[in-house]
């Protein structure tokens, strides 16, 4: 399915930006709006919160020209619950939020998770807890990956550049509608507000197939005459009913996890240190790695792209191959990624160090300095 151009007014812009694959210079929020357009999103339901506001602004500006929809709801719960409403009747719906809004979103996300209703959420992390800052953090990792009162059957892509914001937003729509688990693009305030280069494109031009949205409710025909009525619920009378349902869902999730999981790894022979970071911090980690390599350090780099499902096996293999390899986990949060890493390495003896700076950015220089400290890290087991 392509983009239906309703008005000619913006179609010129569209031709230029998407079809000609022109390199553009813009903010991450703007990139997300274009990506949603390219991914064939039909409707955005949203509630204002910094630093994601401009996604709504750009989307609201684009929609009338492309026959898409936007509604500003009374709060994040309303936006989150309107999403499955639209998805159930066959439309691609999405929202964007951050911080306290991400907390309120957890309720509808839990329902989508239970009922396997597709939806895409863009999370532009801000400082926490509470209102904290509107600027930046990586403190919403745990909430986004495993929030809610369930098992965290979600797909979460943590992006590190505008190009990735664009590509993974499109991918998120595909994953959401292919696998029917709530799907997230985990960005942050820096990615939201900064400007850098990006090449926007029509996914179809790259041979990317867009997964169509199929209605789950309100299919053609008179219910009970032409077809059975569809009755969906998230409430069960018996423990056993829930257990059976959940075990089925977990089996599906575990089956699809290997094809969903993505990571980046660069490991030199006989590595001494492995930098582990996700999202925007991974950029600094990679730079630190390169500069340390030039100084003769045998430093590797590992970046989970999907933080849920987590590429644990890949990480574990690297660590297990070099028992003396020291890991340095770097994040703008106080141990959220670290906990995931340690869980995956359980039983191995690799020392694990960390550079944890909740709510502030981390530079390549700081990471390089942390590697330089010769102290032994603590072992995981």
């Amino acid at each position: 399915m392509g983009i239906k151009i309703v008005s000619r007014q913006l179609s010129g812009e569209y031709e230029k930006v998407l079809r000609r694959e022109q390199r553009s210079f813009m903010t991450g929020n703007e990139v997300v709006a274009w990506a949603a357009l390219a991914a064939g999103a039909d409707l955005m339901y949203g509630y204002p919160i910094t630093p994601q506001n401009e996604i709504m602004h750009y989307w609201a500006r684009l929609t009338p020209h492309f026959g898409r929809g936007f509604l500003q709801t009374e709060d994040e719960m309303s936006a989150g619950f309107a999403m499955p409403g639209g998805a159930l009747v066959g439309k691609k719906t999405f929202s964007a939020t951050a911080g306290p809004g991400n907390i309120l979103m957890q309720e509808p996300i839990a329902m989508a998770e239970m009922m396997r209703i597709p939806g895409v959420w863009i999370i532009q992390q801000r400082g926490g807890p509470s209102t904290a800052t509107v600027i930046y953090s990586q403190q919403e990792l745990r909430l986004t990956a495993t929030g809610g009162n369930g098992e965290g059957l979600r797909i979460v892509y943590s992006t590190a550049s505008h190009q990735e914001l664009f590509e993974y937003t499109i991918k998120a729509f595909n994953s959401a509608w292919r696998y029917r688990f709530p799907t997230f693009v985990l960005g942050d305030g820096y990615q939201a507000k900064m400007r850098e280069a990006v090449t926007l494109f029509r996914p179809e031009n790259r041979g990317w197939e867009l997964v169509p949205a199929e209605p789950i409710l309100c299919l053609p025909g008179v219910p009970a005459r032409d077809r059975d009525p569809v009755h969906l619920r998230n409430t069960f009378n018996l423990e056993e009913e829930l257990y059976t349902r959940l075990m089925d869902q977990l089996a599906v999730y575990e089956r699809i996890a290997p094809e969903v999981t993505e990571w980046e790894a660069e490991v030199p022979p006989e590595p001494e240190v492995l930098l582990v970071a996700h999202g925007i911090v991974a950029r600094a980690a990679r730079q630190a790695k390169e500069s340390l390599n030039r100084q003769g350090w045998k430093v590797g780099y590992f970046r989970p792209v999907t933080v849920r499902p987590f590429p644990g096996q890949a990480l574990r293999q690297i660590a297990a191959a070099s028992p003396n390899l020291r890991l340095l986990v770097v994040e703008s949060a106080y141990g959220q990624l670290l906990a995931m890493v340690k869980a995956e390495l359980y039983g191995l003896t690799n020392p694990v160090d960390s550079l944890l700076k909740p709510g502030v950015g981390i530079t390549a220089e700081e990471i390089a300095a942390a590697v330089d400290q010769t102290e032994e890290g603590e072992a995981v087991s």
Partner: protein
Amino acid sequence: MTEGQKPVLQETPGNTKLPLSWRKETKPHRFCPGCGHGIALKALGEVVDELGILDRVLYGCDIGCSLLSWDFFNFDNIQTHHGRTIPVIVGAKRARPELIGIAYMGDGGGYAIGAQHLVNAAQRGEKITAILANNTLYAMTGGQMAPTTLPGQKTGTTPYGREEAKTGLPMLGPELVAAIAPEGSYVARATVGEYQQLKKYLQKALLNQMTGGGFSFVEVLSTCPTNWRTNAKQTWAFLQGEMPRYYKVGEFRTADAPPGEEEG
């Protein structure tokens, strides 16, 4: 029934003919004997039959005893979260305007935890039909005070009776919605005690959506003998005698009566 209890089987009161849009496989239904939800939903089923819209209805039910209707009808259903049925139906209606969206909820769902959704959907003139069963308390959780509990009424959380000074007076939902909804809205309060009038109001509420009028809202005075701890006679007396002292039955906004002009 209360959360965790086994379903209690019962016959539908009054007319024993089942509406076409009722799903026979799931009858008898799961409400307690004498529960008003069953009557309200029977009226809704008959109205859907009469309007011939079975193929276009999307029905959403809340958490509360309304959830027991998740497989009640022959139309498609989404059972949502406590208080969140309005946004789900709004989301679907905005996505597919040709559908007829019905959000069915209790007084706790509509006036307490989900009040912001009712108020804002009404104020935006969302083209959906919201139906709210007012049984003066939180039934499914075992009978606690709701915004609609009558002064002096005993509930699990007002064991000595609701005191105005501490917890206010009963919430007047249709009056509130009528005051804020834009032109084209339909707002009424019906009662399971007046079946034909209840049907008439539900029909008008659906017709208003079908003709693109605007937001439609019907509060239905309902019964909960289980949590009221009343027998058949006492239940009827409370519904017909006590509740109308605070809750005026009638239409508050119709297509012909512009905002501000109440009908009776």
